[in-house]
């Protein structure tokens, strides 16, 4: 609904499409030239590091480590990617991250949607009490140490549940979903179907879920990105290397500079291991970010919508 409105207005934006640039008043021309320069600079500033990383990942180790790459790939090669896919730590953690992302997102969406459905019903007794119970946690929390103690008491340390359970209910997402359900599913539908003997459970599955596709897509996206990028929980609650998600391995290699060159099996690469390490990092950044950027075009229309639904009522 928001995007539709956005499109309509932007198309009708006075002076945007109907009028040729030369017919604008002189003062407006100055304005457009200036804002064009600023916007182009912003575009370049945002895009340059992204292009640089991509170019460096496709360059040879020698070119990267001698600083020859400035914008485009130099001496195109795939050695960085070869090194990434030969590294056992990276592959295993990649698999772990996939598992945590799928499981964690499923739990998030289930808890959020069921809770949002229940709280969307105006006649629910104690609704205000439950809303306060949930929203209070947005503004106040026990903090790091009490949460750590809880995880320890529940024996969740060094299990994969430490990666999927914390943050399973995002109150913010729940409020977005509740607002969406309230505004898109009319009360008459609830009444009419319950007269027909449709139970609340069945109503949830045959009406609420199908009609909430847009908001489910948004929440799935937000939680999946969150799980894919999650680092904090692993730092806090995992000591077992075999459970490490991708981001922890990324930190070791990218930030703490621990590349185990013995893992690069190719003898030629091993000879030039310093160069290989440099290019491996760029290739690794691309491999780690690619899954998200691949789904990006498909979900782009949804997240603008998601932010707008959220902004309707906080």
């Amino acid at each position, binding site marked *: 609904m928001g995007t539709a409105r956005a499109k309509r207005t932007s198309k009708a934006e006075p002076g945007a499409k109907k009028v040729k640039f030369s017919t604008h008043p002189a003062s407006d021309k100055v304005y457009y030239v200036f804002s064009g320069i600023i916007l182009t600079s912003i575009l370049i500033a*945002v895009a340059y590091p992204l292009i*640089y990383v991509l170019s460096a990942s496709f360059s040879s180790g020698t070119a990267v480590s001698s600083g020859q790459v400035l914008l485009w790939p130099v001496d195109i090669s795939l050695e960085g990617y070869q090194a990434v896919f030969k590294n056992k730590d990276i592959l295993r953690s990649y698999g772990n991250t996939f598992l945590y992302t799928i499981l964690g997102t499923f739990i998030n969406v289930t808890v959020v949607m069921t809770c949002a459905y229940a709280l969307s019903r105006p006649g629910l007794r104690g609704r205000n009490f439950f809303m306060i119970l949930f929203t209070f946690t947005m503004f106040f929390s026990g903090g790091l140490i009490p949460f750590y103690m809880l995880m320890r008491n529940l024996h969740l340390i060094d299990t994969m549940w430490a990666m999927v359970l914390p943050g399973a209910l995002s109150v913010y997402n729940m409020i977005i979903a509740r607002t969406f359900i309230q505004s898109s599913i009319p009360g008459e539908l609830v009444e009419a179907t*319950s007269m027909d003997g449709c139970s609340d459970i069945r109503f949830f599955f045959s009406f609420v879920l199908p009609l909430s596709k847009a908001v489910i897509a948004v929440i799935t996206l937000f939680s999946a990105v969150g799980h894919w990028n999650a680092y904090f929980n692993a730092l806090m609650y995992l000591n077992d290397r075999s459970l490490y998600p991708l981001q922890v391995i990324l930190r070791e290699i990218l930030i703490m500079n621990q590349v185990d060159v013995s893992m690069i099996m190719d003898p030629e690469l091993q000879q030039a291991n310093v160069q290989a390490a440099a290019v491996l990092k760029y290739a690794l950044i691309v491999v780690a970010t690619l899954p998200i950027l691949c789904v990006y075009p498909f979900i782009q229309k949804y997240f603008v919508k998601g932010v707008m639904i959220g902004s309707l009522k906080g």
Partner: protein
Amino acid sequence: MTSQPLPPGRAKNGSKKSIRSGWQMYLFLLPAVVYIVIFAYVPMAGVQIAFKEYDFTKGIWGSEWVGLDNFRRFFESYPFWTIIRNTLLLSLYSLVISFPLPILFALLLNSFIGQKFKKIVQSVSYMPHFISTVVIVGMLVQIFNPRTGAFGSLYTFFTGNVMPDAFANPDLFPHLYVWSGIWQGIGWSSIIYIAALSSVDEHLHEAAQIDGASRLQRVRHIDFPSILPTATIMLILAVGNLMDIGFEKVFLMQNDLNLSSSEVISTYVYKVGLTIGAGDFSFATAIGLFNSVINFVLLIIVNFAARRMGNASLW
């Protein structure tokens, strides 16, 4: 609505259904309530160890009360002022830069001509938001690498010297932190303003144009006031989180050389509470509690002020 065919005899007992609908709805509520009680309210009860001397053998409830000792220890501790200064400096610097820039960006983008160009700028500017903190910091480290990074190469290209290591310089830390945050967030934070701008009544623009208002004047007097309520709410939320410097990014950017400007409350809590050899749970919890209380108070003050000024408020 394609209604489901229902058994005819069941249509009449609607009243019975409405009673039944009660417990079914609570069934839907159950997972979330159980979750929030265990994972939010149990830790909140655990905050009491900030006022105790936590003893592993006696547990949270059995440990001895010590009043405000842990807080006093923190206020009198050697790194107290450094940490507070670093936290405030980083958060105020972030706020001053990252609050207005997305607004300006949204205003500029919205008022610009050329739909294709606007779409491209928008799509590219959202992208960094989805990159993980680890990768962002990793990219910073690589790109600012004096020998192999983009900025290192450019520096050498123009000056002929090797660039000094940016991560080893405490003075550069706030700039690296804040501007990389802008790079990552400017597009995403502007969405909400672009959305608000798209609902501006176009007749206002037409009328102003007839009266001879320039584009800049229309941005100033029509577009800007229309996003002011949204901006107020965003400001309230931002100030409410003023002392809440995200742990992850600072922690990842920290090293021994820049520690004098990069140690903030959250990283200090982690250090005294959870790193090997420290593990002072009560002390760390007290510091964390001190932080959340300040945040909470700030939020209430700013919300109150915004309401007094007649603008939007959270509640």
